[in-house]
């Protein structure tokens, strides 16, 4: 006698299970399917090509009506099961059909997660799950209006690409800093974002959706930072969760999904679950390969093979957007016992990363060129020892075998029309021709004459090899000290390329400039963060995790892990109320040491990190702001009392010092900047050993710079004499901006000046009024974004995680 098998759900997993079952145990079961969707089994993975118009619904059907008839399967379309009666062993649909079962398979799939923001139920808010959603989106797209996709994961990006292909103006909102962060490392996430943006899709990362608003239908999306995006269609694609409600109501064990054993059996021995609604070994799955594996196991079990068991295996992720090649597999975290092989080809937009452990591949991220994904997957699965082919592994399967070429011989063997510089389309013959014809001897000459290696710089090595081949041993490439061991490029080259290529994030720099590590190091990250802050003041989001602790918590770390705090005293001037407030803070927080600094400030030492926000709150009440005593930025302007009090004073040195400090505070610089203004040549403010100093004289203001009184002792150089305070300010600001734009990270002004040459600095700041004005204007622009008091920000709650322990454990037990 045949047994009765009832299946709830008609997606891809139960469809595949039936195929296996019909093969293994034909005729054993009388099968009945209830499908909440009013249609047959179709390939849900192919919804994205349907949305983009590349495929029609008919092309993605897996089992047509004829298939069900042929196999004698009863399919109830548009019937949603509303109850399972485990005692009576029946299921009942919302249309009142009750069907008895001997074995029941629950394959209810998943439901899209809806962010419960205000307006999430307005007409025009859709999810991306089934054909109905796709048809609704295609209808909305006919208006060619604006769409917002919430979610920058696999599904969200596919939806965005589809809507874009339908002619809509699409914006993707993603809450994390990089797209598809679960499958991709930040470098690949950056490349993906660039490719998506190149299609005209706008991407906003770190976007926190606050509300969807509109009058009776969707009109706009509002973000937490106040941004408002007009939209007539909102697609939520932030994730899915297993649809286990019906099982839960029936009293079947449900955790995240319906809990099943490795044989797909729930805690009711006659009820199985598979697909996205099932949870095996604590894991739920959303990609098709493991779901098909579940289908195979469930079919075997139903056919009587009780040994069949589901085994977890990593599944590669691919993005189904035409023209974007992306592949991600396994574990690609860093680790001491792991090595990584990274290949970056910036001009071709290729990024490949293999993570190895014990000479075996454990993880792979491929972007731009994914042809070898299957091969890497195979090597990973078989745990092949790759030590033999390690050097060429990343180049893929076709490069294996054959001796590696001598790189010089390889360049010599290139034909004259081989392209060397992809950015500027310069071929080998043009470069060697120019070297010979024009007698070029340096890389800069070759760049100037041929434009080769003048854009992204990634062909610099090739160009240098050509120079050696053409010039012989007379060419000696200038030894450039690399920034750190993550790159071969020096600071100047990196700064030049950041500007030339418009690189605006740390992952962008690392990708485009072919960093050899995935996450940089403690040397390059703070440097890159400064360069980006300096070069893109309005665009760049300061990366606090790339700042040294002092700049992250706006205080100075001491040897015992406590901090010191220095409030700003403009020009070194204070008053009774301020001093009283400081005294109160010292008492209240039992601050063990108070010290007057060399820069005319008061330093409070020994403050516990946890107390910092409260200390700042009290200081802020008295009108104090951060003194930036911890910053690679403007620290102090030291002054003497000047013409207001001093019998020798020639100008208001105190007032001018305060003015400089109020104008320039908050600016970040390559290294710390200390200034001073003295009211007469007796120089009581010691201006002639400062980074920038002013000596007031009867006829005006003598501007000094490039002094040092630390590791090195060096008197200042004279920049020049100007007549008015306004002129003096403009010159000082312009000089500082020039240093900001050219200085290498941690290079003080005196070292920068020595490198650039004093005459060149004088020429640009004193003699070239237009240049000076331009520097000045750029500084003023960047100050708009820099002059925010970091202390009051933190008193208001910013970065509060920095100042509190995450947890306290063990104290209660210890007391017992």
């Amino acid at each position, binding site marked *: 006698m045949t047994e009765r098998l009832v299946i709830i759900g008609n997606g891809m997993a139960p469809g595949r299970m039936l195929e296996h079952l019909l093969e293994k145990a034909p005729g054993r079961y009388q099968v009945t399917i209830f499908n909440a969707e009013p249609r047959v089994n179709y390939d849900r993975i192919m919804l994205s090509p349907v949305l983009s118009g590349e495929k029609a619904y008919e092309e993605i059907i897996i089992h047509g009506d004829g298939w069900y008839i042929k196999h004698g399967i009863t399919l109830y379309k548009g019937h949603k099961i509303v109850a399972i009666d485990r005692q009576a062993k029946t299921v009942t649909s919302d249309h009142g059909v009750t069907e008895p079962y001997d074995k029941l398979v629950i394959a209810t799939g998943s439901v899209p997660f809806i962010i419960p923001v205000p307006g999430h139920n307005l007409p025009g808010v859709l999810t991306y799950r089934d054909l109905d959603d796709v048809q609704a989106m295609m209808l909305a797209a006919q208006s060619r209006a604006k769409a917002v996709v919430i979610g920058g994961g696999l599904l969200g990006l596919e939806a965005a690409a589809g809507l874009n292909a339908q002619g809509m103006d699409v914006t993707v909102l993603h809450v994390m*800093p990089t797209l598809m962060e679960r499958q991709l*490392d*930040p470098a690949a996430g950056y490349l993906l974002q660039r490719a998506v943006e190149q299609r005209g899709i706008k991407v906003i990362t770190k976007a926190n959706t606050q509300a969807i608003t509109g009058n009776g239908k969707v009109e706009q999306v509002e973000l937490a930072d106040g941004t408002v995006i007009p939209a007539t269609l909102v697609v939520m694609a932030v994730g899915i969760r297993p649809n286990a409600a019906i099982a839960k109501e029936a009293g079947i064990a449900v955790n995240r999904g319906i809990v099943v054993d490795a044989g797909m059996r729930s805690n009711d021995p006659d009820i199985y679950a598979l697909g996205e609604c099932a949870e095996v070994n604590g894991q739920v799955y959303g990609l098709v390969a493991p779901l098909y594996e579940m289908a195979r196991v469930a079919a075997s079990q139903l056919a009587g093979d009780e040994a069949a068991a589901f085994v977890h295996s990593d599944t590669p992720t691919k993005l189904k957007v035409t023209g974007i090649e992306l592949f991600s597999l396994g574990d*690609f*975290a*860093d*680790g*001491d*016992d792991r090595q990584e092989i990274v290949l970056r080809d910036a001009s071709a937009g290729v990024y490949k990363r293999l993570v190895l452990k014990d000479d075996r591949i454990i993880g792979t991220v491929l972007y731009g060129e994914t042809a070898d994904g299957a091969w890497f997957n195979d090597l990973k699965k078989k745990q092949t020892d790759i030590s033999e082919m390690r050097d060429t592994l990343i180049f893929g399967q076709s490069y294996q075998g054959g001796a590696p070429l001598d790189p010089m011989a390889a360049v010599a063997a290139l034909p004259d029309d081989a392209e060397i510089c992809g950015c500027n389309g310069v071929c080998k013959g043009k470069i060697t021709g120019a070297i010979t014809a024009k007698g070029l001897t340096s890389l800069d000459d070759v760049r100037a004459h041929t434009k080769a290696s003048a854009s992204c710089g990634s062909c610099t090595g090739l160009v240098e090899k050509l120079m050696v081949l053409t010039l012989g041993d007379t060419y000696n490439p200038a030894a450039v000290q690399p920034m750190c061991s993550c790159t071969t490029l020096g600071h100047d080259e990196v700064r030049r390329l950041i500007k030339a290529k418009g690189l605006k994030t740390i992952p962008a720099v690392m990708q485009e400039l072919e960093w050899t*590590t*995935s*996450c*940089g*190091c*403690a040397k390059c*990250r*703070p440097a890159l963060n400064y360069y980006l802050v300096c070069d893109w003041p309005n665009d760049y989001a300061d990366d*606090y*995790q*790339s*700042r*040294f*602790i*002092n700049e*992250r*918590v706006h205080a100075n*770390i001491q*040897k*015992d*892990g406590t901090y010191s705090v220095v409030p700003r005293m403009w020009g070194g001037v204070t008053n009774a109320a301020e001093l009283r407030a400081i005294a109160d803070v010292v008492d209240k927080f039992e601050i063990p040491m108070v010290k007057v600094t060399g820069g005319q400030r008061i330093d409070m030492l020994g403050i516990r990190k946890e107390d910092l926000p409260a200390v700042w709150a009290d200081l802020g009440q008295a009108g104090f702001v951060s003194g930036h005593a911890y910053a690679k930025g403007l620290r102090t302007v030291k002054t003497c009392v000047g013409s207001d009090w001093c019998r020798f004073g020639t100008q208001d040195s105190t007032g001018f010092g305060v003015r400089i400090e109020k104008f320039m505070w908050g600016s970040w610089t390559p290294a710390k900047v200390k200034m001073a203004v003295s009211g007469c040549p007796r120089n009581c403010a010691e201006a002639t050993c400062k980074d920038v100093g002013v000596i007031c004289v009867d006829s005006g203001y003598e501007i000094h710079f490039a002094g040092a009184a630390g590791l090195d002792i060096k008197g200042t150089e004279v920049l020049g004499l100007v007549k008015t305070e306004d002129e003096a300010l403009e010159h000082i600001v312009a000089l500082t901006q020039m240093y900001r734009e050219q200085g290498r990270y941690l290079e003080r002004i005196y070292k920068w000046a020595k490198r650039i040459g004093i005459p060149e600095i004088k020429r640009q700041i004193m003699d070239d009024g237009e240049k000076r004005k331009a520097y000045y204007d750029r500084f003023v622009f960047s100050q708009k974004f820099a002059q925010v008091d970091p202390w009051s920000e933190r008193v208001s709650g910013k970065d509060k*995680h920095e100042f509190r*322990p*995450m*947890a*306290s*454990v*063990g*104290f209660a*037990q*210890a007391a*017992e």
Partner: protein
Amino acid sequence: MNWIAIGSISDIPRRGARCVATPEGKIAVFRTVDDQVYAIDDHCPHRGGPLSQGIVHGTAVTCPLHNWVISLETGKALGADEGVVRTIPVRVEGERLFIALEALASRAA
């Protein structure tokens, strides 16, 4: 093993760290750029610097006091420096983080 819940992974910024206070001193819990979580004593083997305050790169942290680079996986100083700091087992269960403290377990018992 005495597994103690200390919070959620989202409490820690990527490429950052938070501290857990214990009677034996602070433990620094790190989260890497790709969401690996490690815990080590918040005490550099060199001069006792608070490692939780350092810059996190890959699976290492650079001590804020004198730039020693400490492996988060082994607790060992990398490069030419020699020294080791205690590592503490961490488990990530979904969003929740647990650390194992054997000393505390024995004391509680």
